[in-house]
């Protein structure tokens, strides 16, 4: 008898998805599938539009990471018009981008991923949310999380035009220079962000790392996959969110590939499965061998843990210290434990805050030289950034007037899709035994993908309250034998 368990929609996920779990006669997991909803029609929508509209259009794809799409798109336009932005423009872009990273990573840790660890993986459901986090860490910290995010979002608006959909990126630069007054505001915001990053890491140390049971969960085989890792690095192989080359390390941590964004199609291919709308990315150089890990399988990961693994260090001092501590505690590089993404995310938050501070204090940041006017005839442009959730590619082809003839986006969650599917399957097999399924057990399955902070970009904003979590159990003839509504 096969029983089917459906978790739908996945709770606390940005965007919505579904997990189907099939049980065998013994009540153990035969197979678990992770599915995401379809995002329809983007390529068709882009064709025929002027390329310079793309940073505004693509930033509207998703309410969660508009700044990442805006930046990847703006860089694709630089490449399309073969134009190099002035140094000050690049610095301002990276300053805004770093600000965005701090506030986005803070949202994930405290509101979305945090409840699993700060409150506890199998804590009662009613406590496993932001209120539970606040009870554990204190109201003062709660107020600080909200106040810091507000301050940082105001800074993004100040430089980027609109926080929801930034409008400042142009091919060859940006639309608005920073004044001395703006600079002062960024300096103040950065100082607060660095403090925030340090105490967030301290909370992780105190609440998670000092709890033996949590550490055992993080390092358990159930949440471990030995795959390749990809991330952007600077010229010294240090993590960079805004620019650089893509570096891929193999499951032993050795450099396997290093390439420019323009060469992504030589190295990244997509695999299609009949049961999922998403295309699963893999490394062409290794090949698709199915949903398996190891050096023979082209499955790779992106996002915080992957970025740390794919680099040789962090470019700022405090984050570099935290980076060393991370690998020392978890047994050297690379770290293959999916749940270590939460820790890696906080190290990245601190790096972004320190980088913000460096750039805000850079005298060049108020330079009025912010634009190189493009003159080349456009044909093809490719841009890449590290979005909070992983590597993001934008690729446009145009006619000679700059009108889009073809557009391709590879979003972070697509890069991660194969490993997420494997993680969900493995976690389900690891925690569901003998047909015993309760709320805490299901949460242990959901944690496997929540660590990636997956985002499906296309999330609709249908109003809350009408879509409860549903668990369905079917017999081998697919007759519904049990339904649990988790609302």
């Amino acid at each position: 008898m096969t029983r089917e368990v459906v978790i739908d929609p996945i709770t606390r996920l940005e965007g919505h998805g579904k997990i189907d779990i099939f049980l065998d006669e013994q009540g153990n997991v035969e197979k678990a599938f992770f599915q995401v909803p379809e995002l329809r029609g983007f390529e068709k929508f882009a064709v025929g539009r002027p390329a310079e509209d793309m940073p505004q259009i693509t930033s509207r794809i998703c309410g969660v990471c508009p700044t990442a799409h805006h930046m990847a798109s703006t860089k694709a336009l630089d490449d399309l018009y073969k134009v190099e932005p002035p140094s000050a423009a690049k610095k301002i872009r990276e300053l805004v981008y770093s600000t965005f990273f701090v506030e986005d990573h803070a949202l994930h840790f405290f509101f979305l991923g945090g409840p699993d660890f700060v409150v506890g993986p199998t804590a009662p459901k009613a406590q496993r949310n932001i209120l539970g986090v606040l009870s554990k860490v204190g109201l003062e910290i709660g107020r600080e999380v909200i106040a810091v995010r507000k301050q940082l979002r105001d800074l993004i608006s100040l430089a980027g035009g609109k926080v929801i959909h930034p409008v400042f990126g142009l091919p060859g630069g940006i639309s608005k220079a920073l004044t001395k007054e703006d600079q002062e505001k960024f300096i103040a915001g950065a100082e607060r962000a660095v403090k925030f990053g340090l105490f967030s890491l301290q909370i992780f140390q105190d609440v998670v790392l000092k709890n033996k049971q949590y550490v055992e969960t993080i390092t358990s085989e159930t949440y471990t996959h030995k795959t390749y890792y990809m991330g952007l690095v600077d010229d010294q192989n240090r993590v960079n969110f805004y620019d650089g080359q893509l570096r891929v390390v193999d499951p032993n941590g050795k450099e396997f590939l290093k390439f420019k964004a323009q060469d992504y199609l030589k190295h990244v291919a997509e695999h299609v499965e009949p049961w999922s709308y998403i295309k699963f990315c893999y490394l062409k150089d290794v090949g698709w061998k199915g949903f398996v890990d190891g050096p023979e399988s082209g499955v790779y990961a992106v996002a915080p843990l992957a970025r740390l693994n794919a680099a040789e260090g962090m470019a700022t001092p405090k984050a570099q210290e935290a980076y060393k501590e991370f690998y020392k505690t978890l047994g050297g590089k690379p770290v293959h434990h999916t749940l270590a993404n939460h820790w890696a995310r906080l190290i990245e938050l601190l790096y972004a805050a320190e980088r913000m501070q460096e750039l805000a204090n850079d005298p060049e940041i108020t330079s009025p030289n912010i634009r190189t006017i493009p003159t080349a005839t456009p044909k093809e442009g490719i841009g890449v950034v590290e979005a909070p959730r992983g590597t993001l590619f934008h690729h446009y082809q145009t006619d000679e007037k700059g009108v889009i003839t073809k557009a391709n986006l590879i979003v972070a969650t697509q890069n991660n899709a194969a490993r997420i599917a494997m993680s969900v399957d493995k976690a389900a097999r690891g925690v569901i035994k003998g047909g015993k399924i309760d709320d805490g057990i299901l949460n242990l399955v959901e944690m496997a993908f929540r660590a990636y902070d997956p985002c499906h970009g296309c999330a609709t904003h249908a109003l809350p309250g009408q879509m409860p979590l549903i668990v369905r159990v079917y017999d081998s003839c697919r007759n519904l034998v049990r339904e649990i509504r988790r609302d």
Partner: protein
Amino acid sequence: MKTLVLGLGNELLSDDAVGVLAARALKERLKDKADVVESALSGMALLDLFIGYERAIIIDAVKTGKNPPGTISELSPTDLSVVLAPSPHYAGLPELIATAQRLHLDFPKEIKIFAIEVEDPNTIGGKLSPAVAHAFRKIVQRVEEQITHWLAPSSRT
């Protein structure tokens, strides 16, 4: 009496755009009466948009499948799931309000939600479906009436 009108949705995604488009249409009409804000965010990420307002109206798409497309429902936050369900998309508002209360934030005492039942909230570049386009005019009018009612001397406390 500071009032917020918040239109939620993704303007690229067919019917999901209805809240944002309604807010855009109301911006000029409600000048001096309320702050009109558009947002593609949801759940906890919306928290700081509400801070400092005494009253708020939310305009959003809803897909229950229980009502025909274009149906407008007027809800209060307590009509939404009272359980602190953890999805930022589906149960974010009760959690958000509870968080604001716990942290003693300056948060609206009264929130009204105008929910428009939609048909297709998933196609990029789609237009509003006919039933939702029809409801669009009604929703703009209903929000305006609500604001007028709030501003009327008799409703002041």
